[in-house]
């Protein structure tokens, strides 16, 4: 299997370039780990604060390699039937009723547990796809611990065992990417199977370029002071520090309001875009001498 599958990327630089071509500016850390995950055929676990582009990364990898994106959104109470596969009971019952009288039971039984009555869910879909696939398992930490156990087989061997049918093995390994906000510790067993990437806020230069690609209408000098101010805000002890998404929002707001410099009046008027807690706003106003 390994021999037939050619890697998606040829070098670390190629990762950076191709991600950039779809509008995702990757740091060295991101490019290197994506390259390695692809090369070593391992799933990639991305952890980090909200709004630094974890989900975006998966989308960008899919877009840049022209792979299909299969997404499993985790939530509390997600189970096997939602993540792996489910039997289509209603259809099975119909099949049994339809065949009543003119078929023997053995044939019917074999028939109702076949491909036709299987409802594949994201994990199985990703495993069975023949085309290049990016499997995104989003917000893994929201799911219960039991679901992790279920993922182990999928992520380490890229196969799914269905008791009634046998084992489905991937013909083509998907590029698997898990994200987590670290609201809880994931189990060691799961982490051990993955490469780990802690995605933090980008350095100022990168952030500047990100804002410029997202909001190209902004003048560069404004982006510069925007990014610098956000960095200062991040250094404060706030309840919720602004993320990249907030920097971009801020840029859009200033643009919509037609402001071309970031002076204290502009900041005072639009601080609510970056800081979402009242106490944070009060604190920033006082510390940055905005009044």
């Amino acid at each position: 299997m390994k021999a037939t599958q050619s890697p998606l990327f040829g070098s670390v630089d190629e990762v950076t370039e191709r991600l950039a071509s779809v509008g995702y500016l990757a740091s060295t850390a991101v490019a290197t780990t994506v390259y390695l995950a692809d090369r070593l055929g391992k799933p990639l676990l991305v952890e980090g604060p909200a709004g630094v582009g974890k989900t975006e990364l998966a989308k960008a990898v899919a877009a840049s390699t022209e792979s299909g994106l299969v997404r499993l959104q985790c939530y509390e109470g997600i189970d096997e039937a939602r993540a792996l596969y489910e039997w289509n009971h209603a259809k099975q019952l119909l099949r049994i009723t339809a065949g009543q009288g003119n078929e023997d039971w053995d044939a019917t039984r074999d028939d109702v547990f076949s491909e036709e009555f299987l409802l594949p869910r994201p994990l199985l879909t990703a495993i069975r796809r023949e085309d290049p696939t990016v499997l995104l398992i989003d917000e893994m930490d929201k799911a219960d611990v039991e679901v992790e156990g279920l993922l182990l087989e999928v992520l380490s061997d890229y196969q799914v065992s269905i008791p009634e049918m046998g084992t489905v093995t991937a013909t083509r390994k998907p590029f698997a990417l898990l994200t987590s906000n670290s609201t809880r510790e994931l189990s060691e067993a799961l982490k051990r199977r993955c490469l780990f990437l802690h995605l933090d806020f980008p350095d100022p230069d990168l952030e500047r370029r990100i804002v410029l690609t997202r909001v190209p209408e902004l003048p560069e000098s404004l982006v510069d002071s925007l990014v610098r101010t956000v960095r200062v805000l991040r250094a404060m002890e706030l309840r919720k520090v602004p993320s990249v998404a907030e920097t971009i929002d801020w840029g859009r707001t200033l643009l919509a309001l037609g402001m071309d410099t970031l002076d204290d009046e502009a900041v005072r008027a639009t601080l609510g875009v970056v800081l979402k807690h009242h106490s944070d706003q009060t604190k920033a106003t006082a510390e940055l001498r905005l009044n």
Partner: protein
Amino acid sequence: MTVEAPEHGIPGHLVAFVGALRTHGVAVGPGETVDAAEVITALDLLRRTEFREGLAAALLRRSGQRQVFDTLFDLYFPPALGAATGSIEVPRDGEGGPVDVDRLRDLLADLLRDGDEERLRELARAAVDALGTAGATGTGVQGMNTQPSWSAYQALRLMSPETLLAQIMAALSQPGDDAFTDEVRRREIRDRIARFRQLVQDEVRRRTAEQRGRDQVAKTAVPKQAEQVEFLSAYAEQLAQLRRTVHPLARRLAARLAVRRKHAKRGQLDMRRTLRRSMSTGGVPMKPAYRTRRPGRPELVILCDVSGSVAGFSHFTLLLVQALREQFSKVRVFAFVEKTDEVTHLFEPGAELSGVMQRVLREADLTAFDGHSDYGHALGSFAEHWGEAITSKTSLLILGDARTNYRDPNLTALRRMIGVARHAHWLNPEPRRQWGTGDSAATRYADVIPMHECRTAGQLADVVEALLPV
């Protein structure tokens, strides 16, 4: 200068590096080491940043481990050997003369103003080479091997980058700047100065490692992970870093607690509701009903020592309790040094908590005579004024090191409080072996009240988790 050639080539070196990570509390299994080896084969080793990120991806499993990793990585895979020459030279009086510190400071000010990290790193390297030798040749006492020992303190004292702040600010200021622009700039420059200090320290660590062997340096000079920093010996920066981990920690505790609760409520049959339900199926209990236990939400009374070194520990614990507020129906906080005073109002939901300890010290009435902790009197005054705060629903938590300056520990008051409260626990940031030494009354208190050792955030989290009701 000694450069140790590893015994088994790159694999041997990798194993040594992994070993060093393990000694610093980063759990790396053999599986991860094999992954790292695969990473080495897949990457271009000459591109150092990529190599570092690749190793981190294979070896690390948590975000808090990165600092330890980076420091050790610099020791095991140093960016340069010896006094690597860069494009920046230290200005000197004449060829080979003494360093012209004033011109060096001007150069530093320029670089700090522009904020080019690469050039700052080069300057740090050059400056350490020129200024960082304590006891260099011909300057007094020397070691046995006449090798200079490197000192970040000396290099930084001569350059004193902090004093450049005003100069840089003046160079950058433009007419019409408002207070806000000024403040942002000041904070930026201050950040860069701190970063430069860091660079100098990294450089000194690297030079020292070359001289004294890297294992020696790895043992002493690598920062600890936030959760393993001891409260009593932590300095301000470490405590600030620690406080940033409080919310993730609280979330983790709450999640673990939710799991415990889910498991705990299983399997208890509710007879009355089962029988009631069976009415609809003709008296046959088809669907058993289980009893769902409502989580008990105790009232919490916290009594914390806020004097001197214990304050860091008290602050962190109070933040943790605050972050876990949903788990309690009511929280009352009392601070004491010599006397006790209620400070609950400073910990209202939504209150600003980063400078809260200073406010406690400033606003609460805590001292009587000399401002040294007096546990006996504090407990006494608490019982006298707020005795009714403790009821049969209360969980009482006392935070402090029990160093009572040889004064009366007032066990009677404590015993009475414990008698009324539902639970009572004492969290002590001192290592257990120091309990009862000197003026510590810890062992005497421990006879009366269950006392837990909470030296680090990790330990504290475990204790708090065990104390939270299921």
